[in-house]
Each structure stands twice: as C-alpha cells, then as structure tokens.
C-alpha cells in the first residue's frame, strides 16, 4: 500500500525545499511585522534581513535556501502575470494618458541607462585611481 511507504517517499530533497520555503516565508513575515509602521515594503525588509544573515554567517548559501530561491526566481516572470492582467481595469486611464506614459518609459529609461553608465564609469575611475595612488 502506498501510504505505508510515506517514510521512504519523503526524500531529503523534498524536505530541503520545504525548509527553504519556510525560511523565506519566515523572513517575509519578520519583514512585514517590522515594516508595519515604515514606508518600506515588508518583503524588501525581509530580503535585507536575509542578506544580512547570510553575510554575517560568511558561509555558502545553505542548500535548502538555494533550492527554494532558485525555483521561485526561475519562475519570476509568471508571478507578475495576475497583477499585469489588472491593467485591464486601467484601460480608460491608459487611453487618456498614453502619450506621457510612453514618453516617460522611453526617455526615462534612456536617461537612466546613459546617466548611470556615466556615473559608474566616472566613480570607478576615481576609485581605482585613489586606491592605486
């Protein structure tokens, strides 16, 4: 009978994934609890805390966490879909404001790409220069 095999069926791999997901959810919960009074999204605080934890540990990422985060992040585009469909609610707004929106998308993105590349190139040159001086 299948159910008798459950002990052997639960491979370490599956528990590893579960541990990783539980860890991610715990950090999200912690972030949400602290972000309650702050103007920062809870999951972002959770990410910051998780990064700090990993950084202070100074060891390779545990397998459970690596497994869970890789599986979630490899499907990241799918996770935007339900929210993206919500744009249908804003059909009238987009019809009325398509020009400023399109201009902000195109020229804003061009401006950011050019200006950040310039700032990075300049600060990197200064930084390497000052360290070799």
């Amino acid at each position, binding site marked *: 009978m299948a159910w008798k095999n459950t002990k052997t069926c639960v491979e370490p791999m599956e528990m590893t994934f579960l541990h990783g997901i539980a860890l991610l959810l715990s950090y999200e919960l912690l972030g949400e609890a602290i972000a309650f009074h702050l103007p920062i999204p809870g999951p972002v605080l959770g*990410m910051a805390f998780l990064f700090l934890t990993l950084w202070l540990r100074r060891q390779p990422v545990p397998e459970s966490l690596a497994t869970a985060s890789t599986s979630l992040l490899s499907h990241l585009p799918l996770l935007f879909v339900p929210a993206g469909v919500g744009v249908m609610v804003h059909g009238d707004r987009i019809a009325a404001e398509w020009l400023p929106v399109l201009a902000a998308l195109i020229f804003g993105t061009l401006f950011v790409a050019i200006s950040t590349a310039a700032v990075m190139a300049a600060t990197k040159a200064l930084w390497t220069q000052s360290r070799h001086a």
Partner: protein
Amino acid sequence: MPESDLASIWVYLSASPLLGLTVTLLAYIAAHSLYVRARQHPLLNPVITSVALLIALLSVTRTPYGTYFQGGQYVHFLLGPATVALAVPLYQQVAKLKSLWFPVVVTVGFGAIASGFSSMAIARVLGASLETQLSLAPKAVTAPVAMGISEQVGGLPSLTAALVVLTGIFGAAIGVKVFELMGIADDSVKGIAMGIAAHGIGTARAFQVSAEMGAFSGLAMALSALFSAAILPGAIGWLIGLGWL
C-alpha cells in the same frame, strides 16, 4: 449537452478560484512556448503575451478582474517570498561588490533617485495625472518591489506591474546599443547601468553578453530595489507634503 447545462457549469466554475489559477498557468505556458519558438525575441516576452491572452479571455467571457484574481492571487502571493529570495543571488555576488563597493553604491543611489524622478517629471510635463506619475516612479525597479513602492506612495500597483515589464523590455532591447554608442566597453559599468535601468529583464539580456555583465546587473537590480524602497516613498511623501506634487 443542452446549452443551459453548459451555462450552469460555467457559472459554477467561474465562481471558483480554480479556474483563474488554471488559466493563468495555461496562458503562461502557451506564452512561454511561443517565446522559446521565436528564439526569445524581446517583443514576445511571455509576461506581455500571457497578460494579453488573459485580458482577451476575460473580456470575451465578460469576467470581472476581481473574479479572476480570486484564483490569480495564489500566484501573486508568491511575489513576497520571491522578493526575499533575491537576497540569495545578491549574497552570491558579495565578493564582486567588495572591490567596487564605493562606485556601485554611489551609482545605485544616484540611479534610484534619477530613475524615480525623471519618469515622474516627464509624465508630469506632458500632463499625466498624479496617480499615473506615482505609478511610473518605481518603473525601473524589479516588479515585486515596484508594486510595493507604488502602493506605498499612492500609485496603482497593477499599472506599475505592466509599466515595469514594458520598461524592462525596452531597456533590455536598447541598453547594449546605447553603451556601445557611449564607447563603454567595461562589463562592470554596463552591467550596473543595465540592472538599474531594466531590472531582471535587462539582467537576462546582460547574461547573454557576458557572465560578468550579468552578475553586475543582478547586483544592481537587487541593490536598486533596496535603495528605491528605502528612498522613494519618503522622498515622494516629502514632496507631496511640500505641495510640490
């Protein structure tokens, strides 16, 4: 089967979250296979195609978005843990950050502010409403974080989600050419700029150029999400308080 039976099955199914969840996954699978068959053409980004498919389906069946979202929310919910999971690739690149921490931090800090306010300013000058301007502010930030910021500042998170995807597609399509025209050959510089301007979609493009550009782009994307979430809501709230917005 008599038509009334079909209709009653439809009424029954459309009221359950199962239908919304299932069509979300099916639409994405179809969109993704189209994307792979078109050799990952940037204009066939699976998010755009599956969103378009689903909107067409909901419009034809006259299903309100709220009914669909009862099922869609199960996918949407995973954005939270996925945001937390971004800490993992960020940590894996910490060695690269160490030698260049100063230029990276300065550039990402500048980029978070420049990106937020340039898009708001352009939209404002061309007459966009305040809600639209606020929805545009986090457009270059990775989607789960951008939606959180949008909600915080009083924008429309679902509009922001669509704008983020469009920004990523545009940035990924033009970025490499722009850096070439600027005469920039350094992969760390190109990667940082790409990650700030076009988040994850730009990062995927950067990895096609080189592993180094991809790693720096991923680093810039994660740091920019942190900086933007820390800076934008406060800065925008302050401007609103001053009566400037």
